[in-house]
C-alpha cells in the first residue's frame, strides 16, 4: 500500500538523505512509502546469521524477499521508500496502488538502508558522503558480492566502524554499499576484510539469472 510519509518519517528521511549529502534531492522529490512487502531484494543472503557459511554472523541486515533461497526476517520493517517524478504521479499512485512505482530509494528500519538507485544519485549529485574508492580488480570482485580488503582501497572519506559507505571504483562509479569493520584511520589494513559487502550492482545480474 503506497502512502504519503508521516511527519516522523519525513524528518527521519531528511536526516538520512542529509547524511548522504543529497538533502536537496529529498526537498525536490515526490516520496511515497510502501508498507507491504516488496519483491525486490536489495541485500544479499550472505548475512543470514543462521547460515553457518555466512561471513558476518553478527550482521543484522536481512533480506526483504519472497524468494525461498533468501532468509526472510519478519522483524524487519517492510517500509520501502519510493521516489516519483512528479506530484501528479504521486497522486496517481496513491489512487491506483500499482504493483511498483518510480524508483526504490531504500528501506526504513530504525536506520535508512539505501538502495542501489539511491547510491547512484549519491555518487552523481553529492559531494559529501561516506565512501571508499577501490582498485579495479577489487571492483570486479565487489560486483560478484565479495568483501573489500584493506590493500584494495585507494582512498576514503572519514568514518567510524560500522558505518554504511558507498563503494566506488577509480572512476567514482558506484559499485555497491558496504559496512565498515574499522574506522577510516585504520582502513588500509593489509590482508584483512575491512568493508563488508552489503549490496552491489552485480545483484542485478545474479537476480536476472
Amino acid at each position, binding site marked *: 500500500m503506497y502512502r504519503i510519509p508521516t511527519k516522523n518519517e519525513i524528518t527521519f528521511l531528511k536526516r538520512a538523505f542529509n547524511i548522504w549529502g543529497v538533502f536537496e534531492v529529498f526537498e525536490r522529490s515526490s516520496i511515497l512509502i510502501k508498507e507491504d512487502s516488496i*519483491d*525486490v531484494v536489495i541485500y544479499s543472503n550472505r548475512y543470514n546469521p543462521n547460515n553457518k557459511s555466512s561471513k558476518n554472523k553478527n550482521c543484522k541486515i536481512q533480506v526483504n524477499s519472497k524468494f525461498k533461497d533468501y532468509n526472510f526476517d519478519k522483524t524487519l520493517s517492510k517500509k520501502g521508500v519510493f*521516489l*516519483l*517524478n*512528479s506530484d*501528479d*504521479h504521486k497522486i*496517481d*499512485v496513491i489512487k*491506483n496502488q*500499482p*504493483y*511498483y*512505482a*518510480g*524508483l*526504490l530509494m531504500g528501506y526504513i528500519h530504525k536506520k535508512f538502508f539505501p538502495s*542501489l*538507485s539511491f547510491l*547512484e544519485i549519491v555518487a552523481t549529485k553529492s559531494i559529501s558522503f561516506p565512501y571508499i574508492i577501490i582498485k579495479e580488480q577489487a*571492483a570486479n570482485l565487489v*560486483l560478484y558480492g565479495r568483501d573489500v580488503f584493506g590493500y584494495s582501497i585507494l582512498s576514503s572519506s572519514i568514518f567510524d566502524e560500522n558505518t554504511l559507505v558507498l563503494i566506488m*571504483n577509480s572512476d567514482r*562509479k*558506484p*559499485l555497491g554499499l558496504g559496512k565498515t569493520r574499522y574506522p577510516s584511520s585504520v582502513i588500509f589494513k593489509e590482508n584483512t576484510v575491512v568493508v563488508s559487502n552489503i549490496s552491489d*550492482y*552485480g545483484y*542485478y*545480474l545474479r*537476480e*536476472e539469472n
Partner: protein
Amino acid sequence: MKCILFSDSDYIQKLSNKYSFQTWMVSRYDKYVSDLEEFLKTINEISSRRYIRTNTLKISPDKLKKILLKKECVIKTTNLDEVFELINTGYPIGASLEYLLGYYYLQDLSSCYAVDAMELNENMKILDIAASPGGKTTYISQKLNNTGLIYAVESDKKRLKKLVFNTTRCGSKNISIYNIDGLSLSLSKIFSEAKFDNVILDAPCSCDGVIQKDRFRKKTYSTKSIDYCSTRQLNMINQAVSLVKPGGTLLYSTCSYSPEENEFVVNSLFDKHDIIIEPYKYGVPGLTSFGDHQLDKSLKNTRRFYPHIHNTLGFFIAKIHVK
C-alpha cells in the same frame, strides 16, 4: 483468425529441405518475402545482429560511445542516434558495470523502431500493454525525459520481476507497473475510464521473427500458435484502441511475420473504430492482400522488417491514429 495455408511446389520443397524449415512456413513466406532464399539463408546461417540502445537518462550517446571505444569495442551507428550496432565487444556486454548502471539496454533495432515511430512529447500519459521485460517501456521513459506518466501493464507475475529490474536499472521514475492482463483492462477500475495520449501494444505473438536468434523455433512453430495468438491479439487491440484519447496514437507491434497476427489484426479495427494508419520512415510496406483476402489499402502504411533487408529480427509495426 485461422492460419492460411498454401500448396507447395518443388521449389518450396527444395528450399524447405535446404534450410530445414517446415514446408508450410516456406510456402507462406513465399507469398510476401522478397528474395526468399536470401531470407531463409540469413535466418538459418547468419547470427542475428546485436544492438545496444543508449539510456539517455543516464548518459549521452557520445559519452557511451567513448566508453565503449576505450574498452576496444567495435561499434557502428544506426538510423537511430541512440542505438549502436555491436560488431565486436571482446567482453560480456551484458555483464559490464556500464550495463549494470543502466547506461545502455540490449535491444534489437526493430524494437527501437517501434518506440521511434511513436510521437512522444514530455508530460504525455502513455500506456504500455504487455510491457515486460521493459525495453520499450524504458525507451519511452527516456524519450519523455522522465516526465509524464507511463502505465506499464504485465499479466505474468514472473515477468514482472524482470520489468522492475530493468526500470530500476535504467533509473526511470515515471513508470507505474500494474499486474493486470492486457485482455481484461476494460474490467479494471483503473483503466475503465482512463484515456492515454499514446498506447503501445507489443502483442504476445507466435514469434517467428526471432527464429534467427532461437533456431529451435523452426521445428516447434505451428499453425496452432498463429491461430491462438491472432485471436488473442484481436481482443487486445480492440481494448487498446478504446483506451487512446481522440487524436492519440496506438502503436501495434509484433515480432511475427504472420499476416494473421499483423495486417489482419489491424484491418479488423476499421469495422468499429475511426482510425488512420500512418506511415513510418523505415521498413517495407505492409501487405494489402494475402491469399484470397483483400485488406484495406492503407495497410501499406504499416511496416515490416526482415533480417536480410534491414539487419534486424523480423518485426511488424502499425502506427494507428485514432480520430
